[in-house]
């Protein structure tokens, strides 16, 4: 065999293979089986389509290792077709045609097919084959065909289609090595045919005559031939399949993504001309493709696939489904399940969250014992540790939520949940798939927004992302608890069964969701207008979830969360810390702190001194914060927050809580000279708030002020990590800015109305 260098054909340093398949075919399982769990996840340039790559783990039994090169596996989004109707499909075609920036053109394609539903799955294969790349079929879920009464001869299938076929059960890790060896064999043969002079097609490439497009109507084929020449003359490099797509697909879809903006008008005119010519010959455009491809499938599977006539006895999956999608029982089960998930996120996550907070406290004390009081200690403990810790604390919630989502998706229930909630969500301008992300946003909007990835329709997804931060997340809870315990009377009715405090808390929890209804309606009406989305969705059979897939998903999400939102929140916390720390002479506070720490080594004897020092430090700290940039900003905004019934101190606290809303409890504590580190049940803070007065001696806080603060927190976008997540998920700064502006406006108006109404009631 010639070495590649001698033949002058310098190979790329890696092979690239693409993995494509319908949704629900076990593609994630297969990807994990091929690459292990070290996948890299990102977005393709300019679109919100997930770009996942991994490295093929070459089995020890391989006697050839594709000439020692690395094999990169690109996992394409699950799709039923390559018609450029959605961004997912358009991106898949671009990657396969080698036109996606930053992604090498694949050397081969692995198409994963669900053996049980082979015929429908072959539709995608028939399109993939048109691209002319070496193709390997992974006939997945092979273990289930007997139970489903399907008989397939893999050898005959391979012969009939002209590509290698490997039977796999990816979830059980069966057939994986055989598939890997087949991939390596194809790549090897590709390598030798690159270096030989023979013009023979490499292994796994069916001839053009055997493709489904060979049976397209003659006028269409002639028209495409002419267009291929025309595109070549215009120096626009497009694959024949892409030109066919331009001609067949709805131009309102994504097919024109492949043409640059400057060329688009010319190309569009040319395509319209070709369409008119075809119409004149009596050929209606889109429908002959499906007809030709299904005819091709019928011909290729003749004598290869046999199905026993479905017996009257229904499968276990059918029986389960009868109950789980039952009109009432299904709905009850669904609500109970949501309740369980919601409870787990808020309750189970509590233990690890407390652990993280405790660890953070210990780490803080430890750092304090090493660094003397001063800017460095303050930056590390109050800036970085408090800020980053505030984010890391959400990790358990995210992990638990994605554990549930992973299980529900992998076992097939998720599509049923979407099915049951669709009517309700559609009336709000979304789809059934928006329900779970919104429900999870009651715990935390970040995993909720990340979970919107399961919504294919872009407009539905955008509306869901934009209203998710309105759901009352767990970080709002401390604010409500503090305000309610301080200012809402402990009145109860019906022998204590209904309490005013509980009712106010519940009202605050529901407020965001109630406001979200008109917001969603307006967004759908004016910001994302257009045809109603479709809900053509496969309800796949139930199966046991694969733990590997579920844990890989949890790991992926956790990793992405820590890396991306973590770096951004780090910067934000340092900035806010700096605004609250500078300018100001911290010498007095630092020396007092030093004195305090010396005294604390013997707390018993010095207790009175410690108390007086502590209050001295708190006074000094409150002076410093009011002199800081943040404090000055608070004074500047006092005229703005006055109509809401707030004073400048509340203004500062609210301003400082824009990066993370729960910060307000600690900030109010600092400002009201109690020192930070107070928590919501601290009666001292509640007392201090009640005692605060305006310059004329009247109370600052009243029930009206407290409610106005709560309403503001219920509606405001006070969470930098959420905004950063929106930025990442929408790939644009426009939407986080939009969310911030609309929610802050809504919060201000809501708080103003609340204050007006309540202060009018009680003079």
């Amino acid at each position, binding site marked *: 065999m010639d070495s590649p260098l001698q033949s002058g054909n310098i190979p790329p340093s890696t092979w690239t293979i693409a993995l494509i398949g319908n949704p629900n075919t076990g593609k994630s399982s297969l990807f994990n089986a091929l690459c292990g769990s070290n996948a890299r996840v990102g977005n393709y340039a300019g679109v919100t389509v997930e770009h996942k790559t991994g490295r093929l783990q070459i089995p020890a039994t391989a006697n050839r290792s594709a000439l020692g090169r690395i094999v990169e596996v690109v996992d394409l989004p699950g799709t039923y077709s390559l018609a450029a109707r959605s961004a997912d499909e358009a991106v898949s075609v671009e990657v396969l045609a080698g036109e996606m920036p930053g992604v090498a053109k694949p050397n081969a394609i692995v198409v994963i097919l669900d053996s049980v539903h082979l015929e429908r799955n072959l539709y995608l294969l028939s399109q993939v084959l048109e691209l002319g790349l070496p193709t390997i079929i992974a006939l997945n879920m092979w273990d289930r065909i007997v139970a489903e009464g399907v008989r397939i001869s893999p050898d005959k299938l391979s012969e009939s289609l002209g590509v290698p076929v490997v039977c796999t059960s990816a979830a059980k890790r069966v057939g994986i090595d055989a598939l890997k060896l087949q991939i390596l064999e194809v790549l090897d043969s590709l390598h030798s045919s690159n270096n030989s002079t023979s013009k023979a097609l490499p292994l796994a490439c069916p001839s053009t005559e055997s493709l489904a497009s060979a049976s397209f109507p003659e006028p269409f084929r002639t028209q495409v031939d002419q267009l291929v020449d025309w595109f070549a003359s215009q120096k626009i490099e497009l694959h024949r399949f892409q030109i066919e797509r331009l001609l067949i697909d709805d131009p309102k879809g994504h097919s024109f993504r492949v043409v640059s903006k400057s060329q688009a008008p010319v190309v569009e005119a040319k395509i319209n001309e070709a369409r008119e010519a075809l119409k004149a010959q009596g050929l209606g*455009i889109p429908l002959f493709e499906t007809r030709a491809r299904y005819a091709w499938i019928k011909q290729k599977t003749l004598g290869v696939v046999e199905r026993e006539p479905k017996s009257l006895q229904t499968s276990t999956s059918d029986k389960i489904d009868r109950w789980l999608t039952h009109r009432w029982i299904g709905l009850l089960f669904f609500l109970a399940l949501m309740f369980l998930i919601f409870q787990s996120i808020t309750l189970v996550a509590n233990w690890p969250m407390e652990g993280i907070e405790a660890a953070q406290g210990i780490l803080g004390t430890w750092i304090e014992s090493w660094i003397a009081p001063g800017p460095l200690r303050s930056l590390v403990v109050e800036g970085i540790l408090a800020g980053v810790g505030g984010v890391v604390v959400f990790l358990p919630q995210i992990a638990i939520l994605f554990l549930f989502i992973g299980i529900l998706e992998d076992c097939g229930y998720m599509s049923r949940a979407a099915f049951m909630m669709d009517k309700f969500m559609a009336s709000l301008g979304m789809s059934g798939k928006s329900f779970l992300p919104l429900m999870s946003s009651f715990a935390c909007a970040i995993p909720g927004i990340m979970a919107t990835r399961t919504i294919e329709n872009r407009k539905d997804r955008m509306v869901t992302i934009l209203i998710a931060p309105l759901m009352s997340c767990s970080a709002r809870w401390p604010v409500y608890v503090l305000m309610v315990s301080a200012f809402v009377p402990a009145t109860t009715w019906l022998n204590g069964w209904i309490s005013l405090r509980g009712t106010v808390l519940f009202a605050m929890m529901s407020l965001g969701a109630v406001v979200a209804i008109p917001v969603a309606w307006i967004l759908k009406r004016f910001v994302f207008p257009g045809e109603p989305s479709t809900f053509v969705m496969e309800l796949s059979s139930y199966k046991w979830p694969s733990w590997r897939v579920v844990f890989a998903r949890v790991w992926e999400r956790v990793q992405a969360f820590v890396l991306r939102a973590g770096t951004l929140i780090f910067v934000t916390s340092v900035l806010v810390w700096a605004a609250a720390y500078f300018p100001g002479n911290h010498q007095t506070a630092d020396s007092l702190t030093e004195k305090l720490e010396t005294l604390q080594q013997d707390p018993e004897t010095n207790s009175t001194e410690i108390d007086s020092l502590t209050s001295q430090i708190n006074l000094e700290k409150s002076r410093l914060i009011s002199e800081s940039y943040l404090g000055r900003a608070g004074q500047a905004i006092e005229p703005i927050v006055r109509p809401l019934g707030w004073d400048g101190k509340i203004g500062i606290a609210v301003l400082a809580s824009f990066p993370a809303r729960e910060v307000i409890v600690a900030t109010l504590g600092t400002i009201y000279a109690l020192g930070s580190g107070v928590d919501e049940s601290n009666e001292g803070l509640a007392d201090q708030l009640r005692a605060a007065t305006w310059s004329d001696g009247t109370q600052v806080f009243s029930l009206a002020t407290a409610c106005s603060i709560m309403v503001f927190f219920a509606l405001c976008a006070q969470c930098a990590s959420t905004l950063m997540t929106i930025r990442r998920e929408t790939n644009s700064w426009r939407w986080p800015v939009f969310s911030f502006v609309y929610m802050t406006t809504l919060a201000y108006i809501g708080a103003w109305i609340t204050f007006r109404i309540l202060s009018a009631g009680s003079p």
Partner: protein
Amino acid sequence: MPCSLDELLEGQKAVIIEVIGADSLSARLLEMGLLPGETIEMIGSAPMGDPTEYMVFNYRISLRKPEAKRVLIERT
């Protein structure tokens, strides 16, 4: 007598005559296997009466009413 798919009642079966229209929705329905000549069965509706679950091409699919209206069928 031909009617549209949304008129099919729970447990009833029908043969698909054609998918009406030539837009991307019709193309999607055809791609998903709602082909002329195939048998389709109505499995049940969601709690609020819509969408509806059907069995076609050996798998289950959920369609909203406007989508089901696009499919012309003949009851068997």
